[in-house]
């Protein structure tokens, strides 16, 4: 009879050999690089079979998650055979690592447009599916979700730049808001406001390197510029950027700007106390007077951006998000069906933007990028109390439709923040001239981000 506790004898050499083999096998196996090709193919555009199955969808934490939760419910009500595991995740932080590791990859995720190109190799090519909607997507947005000729995300929102201003302060200073049609006129208005109130630093100057780059990009985009041209050639050292930076430098050197990071204490306090009066920013600035400002709530208004030259474009775009379907998604077809419902069906985009429990007046921080949804006379969200009851929908739609197209985000946009974003920060601190910013940034980007490596 064998003792069950007696150990099975084997040699030390056998043990070491076995361990070594296991480690080697594990090591080699695990060293195999990730696969970019989705194992589950997407359907062709013509598939009509009712969808069924289970998907995992990631959305940004916070109110937006709650809004999408309701919108997803409208999808599952339409397709009861589908179960959606809707998760609130810090998507920007978690998605890149998840896509690389391939573990726990969601079927779809909400993701910042500015960061899209960085994860492009890990996403499904949606070109064929999007084809039928292409002519109905805002040209700017279509450019943003297209990388190397492939559509890599379902375009979600459009974030037109607008000029937000303190109506009470501006009027008290004797400035007619309707006169703010050019950036030179805005500069004059800022001087007038400061003459009336010497403590005023009327124009916002963004001091965060990431947002600063996004902000200057909006000014350049308004003039039809971008960091690269359609052939991928670096075009940062060009007139649109020079014009924008020269203007910002003038604001700084004349002491007309409040240098602050978006929604940080200095920013909020100066907006509330009336020393910061003009904020040229994306539509999503409207969140600030609604949620963060106290005494100035209701005193803010919005208008289209001033033009860089009289009669020029009054719109640019700053930020935005889209929906991505990872190449390693288990059920990409269902994810596409969900996003198709949210973006391209009236029921979907109305559920997201229309009045709901989270936003009783509707979601007003952006507008859809789907052009049929942008009817100025059929607003999706209501006039905004924090803007004195102003109908922001009409202004945003007008601006959104004007946003110049043909914009391309370079794959290294996020990495360029360390160079261009930081150099803009130095300009606003008076350490670099506009020319130095452009020449230094162009050299740094060419060497570190576009070089042979």
């Amino acid at each position, binding site marked *: 009879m064998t003792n069950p506790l007696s150990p099975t004898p084997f040699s030390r050499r056998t043990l070491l050999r076995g361990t070594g083999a296991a480690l080697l096998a594990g090591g080699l196996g695990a060293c195999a690089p990730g696969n970019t090709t989705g194992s589950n193919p997407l359907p062709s555009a013509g598939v009509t079979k009712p969808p069924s199955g289970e998907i995992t969808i990631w959305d940004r934490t916070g109110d937006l998650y709650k809004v999408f939760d309701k919108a997803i419910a409208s999808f599952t009500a339409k397709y009861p055979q589908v179960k959606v595991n809707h998760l609130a995740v810090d998507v920007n932080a978690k998605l890149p690592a998840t896509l*690389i590791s391939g573990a726990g990859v969601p079927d779809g995720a909400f993701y910042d447009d500015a960061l899209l190109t960085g994860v492009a190799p890990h996403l499904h090519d949606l070109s064929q599916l999007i084809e039928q909607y292409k002519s109905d997507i805002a040209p700017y947005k279509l450019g943003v979700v297209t990388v190397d000729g492939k559509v890599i995300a379902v375009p979600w929102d459009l974030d037109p730049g607008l000029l937000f201003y303190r109506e009470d302060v501006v009027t008290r200073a004797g400035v007619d808001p309707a006169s703010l049609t050019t950036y030179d006129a805005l500069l004059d208005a800022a001087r007038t406001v400061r003459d009336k109130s010497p403590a005023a630093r009327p124009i916002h100057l963004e001091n965060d390197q990431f947002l600063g780059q996004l902000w200057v990009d909006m000014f350049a985009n308004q003039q039809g510029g971008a960091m690269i041209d359609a052939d991928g050639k670096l075009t940062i050292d060009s007139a649109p950027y020079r014009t924008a930076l020269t203007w910002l430098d003038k604001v700084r050197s004349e002491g007309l700007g409040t240098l602050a990071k978006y929604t940080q*204490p200095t920013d909020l306090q100066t907006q509330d106390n009336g020393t910061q009066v003009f904020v040229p920013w994306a539509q999503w600035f409207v969140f600030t007077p609604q949620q963060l400002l106290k005494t100035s709530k209701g005193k803010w208004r919005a208008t289209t951006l001033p033009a860089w030259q009289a009669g020029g474009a009054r719109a640019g775009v700053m930020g935005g998000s889209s929906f991505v379907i990872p190449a390693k998604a288990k059920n990409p077809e269902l994810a596409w069906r969900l996003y198709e419902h949210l973006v391209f069906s009236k029921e979907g985009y109305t559920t997201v933007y229309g009045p709901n429990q989270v936003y009783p007046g509707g979601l007003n921080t952006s507008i859809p990028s789907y052009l049929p949804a942008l009817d100025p006379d059929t607003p999706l969200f209501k006039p905004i109390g924090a803007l004195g009851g102003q109908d922001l929908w009409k202004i945003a739609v007008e601006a959104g439709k004007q946003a110049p197209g043909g914009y391309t985000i370079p794959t290294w946009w996020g990495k360029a923040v360390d160079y261009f974003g930081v150099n803009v920060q130095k300009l606003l601190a008076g350490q670099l001239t506009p020319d130095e910013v452009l020449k230094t940034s162009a050299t740094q980007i060419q060497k570190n981000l576009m070089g042979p490596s």
Partner: protein
Amino acid sequence: MATLTEAATTRRSARPVRRRRVSAAPYLFVAPFILVFAAFSAYPILFALQLSFTNWHGAGALEIVGLANYQFLLTSPDFWQSMATSGALWLLVVPAQVLLALTIAVALRKARFRGLFSAALIAPFVTPLVAMAQVWIILFDKDFGAVNHGLTSLGLPAISWLTSGVWAKVTIALLVLWRTTGYAVILLMAGLSSIPSDVYEAARIDGAGAWHQFWSITVPLVTRTLSFVVVIGTLTVFQLFAEPYVVTGGGPFNETRTAGLYLYKHITNSDLGLGAANSMLLVVMVLALSIASIRLLRSREDS
């Protein structure tokens, strides 16, 4: 020559083969640790080492680029700036932390309510960092922060705590000190409690004053604990990520982009080969700094 070889072979084969048999039990007992260590420590390190010689971006085939990543980093001003930032923070944090922690630990050695003080000291360490970082931003705001309000009411000039490169480092260092000093105090209190009281008694009989006792007894006998505090402090500073990420985002002008934050940027940019090479360089530097610190303290202990 051939004859000698044959003879040796004959002698070897004539000896009875004795294969040492060993029990599997000890190996089975340590197997869980070995497996976990292999999966979560050895393998990631080896894989990172392998990655550091490639230009892998998380997808596609691994393309070997030799030492190119190391060459890029070692000649990159950005890399050296991040190392210099971490070095500056090390100088701001570690010596101050050791001094503060030792002073507090000695002061608390015979204090009443030691348990209460210990709990209070460890509180910052367990407080969610992101929440505290947000408080820091509000406290140190140049125009509306409480700290500058205090300074100006004393007739001192307001400081650009978060918008000047030098002061932003100080602000981050203060947050790190606030968060981690309590933990160092707890460690040193444990070290102090292991010093026999009769050593102090003998010193007192010999006429040694409090200061003399501190330098001649306390400090030498807690040197090992101090070494540990220094190593932990060094690791903390060189891996520092969350504090600059939340408080300054690495700015202004990348002046608070620590080695940890610079490494994180490679990962989020999907530059995994570069990130792995950066990790390896960081390991070497942290190891060198830790060993140098320990040697320095040990030499004092020996003398």
